[in-house]
């Protein structure tokens, strides 16, 4: 490999952050060119992320020090398999969903916020110390709130404010935890914290975890999510549910199974697991009562995040096998949820309403959107051959491997619960349209085809589970 390629490769981690960051600024300065910039940068960012992932798969984790200034004063980035996989997932979803976004006015800061969110996610995933993560989380929070508020309607602004309040409170808790950690350990870098132990570290872990739970809407701190994801424009909801909430969960995984593993917190880990079960049940119960398709999908996110949190005790005991399973579940959820939101957005746009009782005739009138919803549901429920099934299978195997068979029962029961909820919402789509409506299929728009393509990505993760898990477990927790 030539030295130019090697230099490029060496700088990939920072490039992945800088590309969307520079793009955000450019979109702000040149709003007319925002869509074109978005397309170009999307492709560049996706290529860079894909390259990084391929490199990590082959050669293992890669580090980078910004500006050559060593920590603790400088910023260090660390791209292991898990981070690279999440970065790639972000790039794909951000690019694809971003291409569908239609902001209200072209002078809007929509694309600026979009690209800031992307950069922030990259910062969170690639950072190697707890404070850089804080900066990333803040940027992410502000950008996401802007995306939620972008429709400009009363409900959207209200939801955005609630999101902001929750996000800020969460950040404060996280910051408090980070401060405690620094006070007791003297360092905030993830590598340096691996030997942390004792009461201050435990308290810090508790604060940081609660803060992160608030930021990613895990039961019982999930109140802001359905409103925010329900009111945001469909592409924004797609990435919010798809990747943004995963950032907090990613940090929780890192802290509990990798960085602060030494902290004796097994009972607390089981408490987190119990919260996960609570999320699963509560999300399902609220989705059962919801009357709009987008709200059902948003509560389904609350439910599915429960699985990701339930994995924490398994990650501590079962290690790599659980990590593979939970990342499959996370990626499959990202694709399936994005596909569902985009399809629901298309339904809303075409029919002016996404109320469940008006869905009759959807299957004949908007077959592509209906099929996308169906494929997404298959993955969310965890039926073969989707990635959702593969993820659940691995987690069930991990539970059996550590003799924690009750988790296996929970995963299976959760599938049935999700199935009941989603089928209740979507079955009306199969009913024949009311007699006065045409039942011919209308031409599908770009958003419907994109929704289908993304949802099929969730399905493809089943057969492709092997390569994905190899990437994710590369250089990660032992």
């Amino acid at each position, binding site marked *: 490999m030539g030295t130019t390629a090697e230099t490029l490769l060496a700088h990939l981690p920072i490039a992945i952050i800088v590309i969307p960051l520079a793009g955000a600024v450019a979109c702000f300065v040149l709003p007319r060119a925002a869509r074109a910039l978005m397309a170009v940068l999307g492709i560049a960012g996706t290529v860079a992320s894909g390259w990084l992932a391929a490199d990590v798969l082959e050669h293992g984790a890669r580090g980078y020090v910004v500006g050559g200034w060593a920590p603790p004063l400088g910023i260090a980035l660390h791209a292991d398999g898990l981070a690279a996989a999440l970065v790639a997932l972000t790039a794909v979803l951000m690019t694809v969903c971003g291409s569908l976004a239609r902001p209200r006015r072209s002078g809007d800061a929509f694309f600026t916020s979009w690209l800031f969110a992307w950069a922030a996610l990259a910062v969170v995933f690639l950072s190697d110390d707890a404070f850089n993560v*804080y900066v990333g989380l803040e940027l992410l*929070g502000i950008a996401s709130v802007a995306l939620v508020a972008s429709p400009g309607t009363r409900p959207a602004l209200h939801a955005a404010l609630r999101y902001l309040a929750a996000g800020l409170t969460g950040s404060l808790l996280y910051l408090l935890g980070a401060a405690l950690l*620094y006070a007791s350990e003297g360092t905030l870098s993830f590598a340096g914290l691996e030997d942390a132990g004792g009461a201050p570290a435990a308290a810090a872990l508790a604060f940081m975890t609660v803060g992160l739970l608030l930021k990613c809407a895990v039961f019982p701190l999930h109140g802001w999510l359905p409103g925010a994801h329900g009111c945001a424009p469909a592409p924004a909801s797609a990435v919010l549910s798809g990747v943004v909430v995963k950032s907090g969960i990613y940090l929780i995984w890192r802290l509990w199974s990798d960085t602060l593993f030494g902290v004796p917190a097994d009972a607390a880990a089981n408490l987190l697991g119990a919260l996960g079960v609570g999320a699963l049940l509560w999300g399902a119960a609220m989705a059962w009562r919801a009357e709009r398709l987008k709200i059902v999908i948003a509560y389904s996110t609350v439910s599915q995040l429960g699985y990701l949190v339930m994995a924490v005790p398994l990650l501590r005991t079962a290690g790599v096998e659980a990590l593979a399973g939970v990342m499959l579940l996370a990626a499959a959820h990202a694709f399936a949820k994005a596909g569902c939101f985009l399809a629901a957005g298309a339904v809303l746009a075409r029919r002016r309403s996404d109320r469940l009782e008006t869905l009759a005739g959807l299957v004949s009138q908007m077959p592509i959107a209906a099929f996308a919803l169906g494929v997404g549901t298959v993955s969310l429920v965890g039926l073969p051959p989707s990635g959702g099934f593969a993820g659940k299978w691995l987690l069930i195997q991990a539970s059996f491997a550590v003799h924690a068979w009750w988790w296996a029962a929970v995963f299976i029961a959760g599938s049935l619960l999700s199935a009941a909820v989603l089928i209740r919402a979507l079955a009306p789509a199969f009913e024949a349209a009311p007699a006065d409506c045409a039942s011919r299929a209308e031409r599908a728009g770009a958003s419907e085809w994109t929704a289908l393509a993304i949802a099929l990505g969730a399905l493809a993760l089943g057969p492709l589970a092997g390569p994905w898990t190899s990437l994710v477990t590369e250089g990660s927790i032992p």
Partner: protein
Amino acid sequence: MTSAGFVIYATAGVALIGAGAFGLARARDALRRIVAINVAALGVLTTMVALAARGGGEADPVTHAMVLTGLVVSASATALALALVRRMAHLRGEEDADGHDG
């Protein structure tokens, strides 16, 4: 910083966090919530300043850097929140105006 100084700043920090949390729980509208969160944020940052000087001698610059970053972030987020509140009031004003006309 002396030990007494540390205690004062730490106590002040914790008190501010408490005040902010109390205000957040009791807040009825968005503006009050924003103010409460700001107070709590200042409390967290003050505590961090106190922690920075705990060992006696030179204060730790890394923590000060963190505090400064925290201040900047808090200010930006507050700005966003206020902009949202203003926009909502504007919309409400428009609605009231429409209501009167209609």
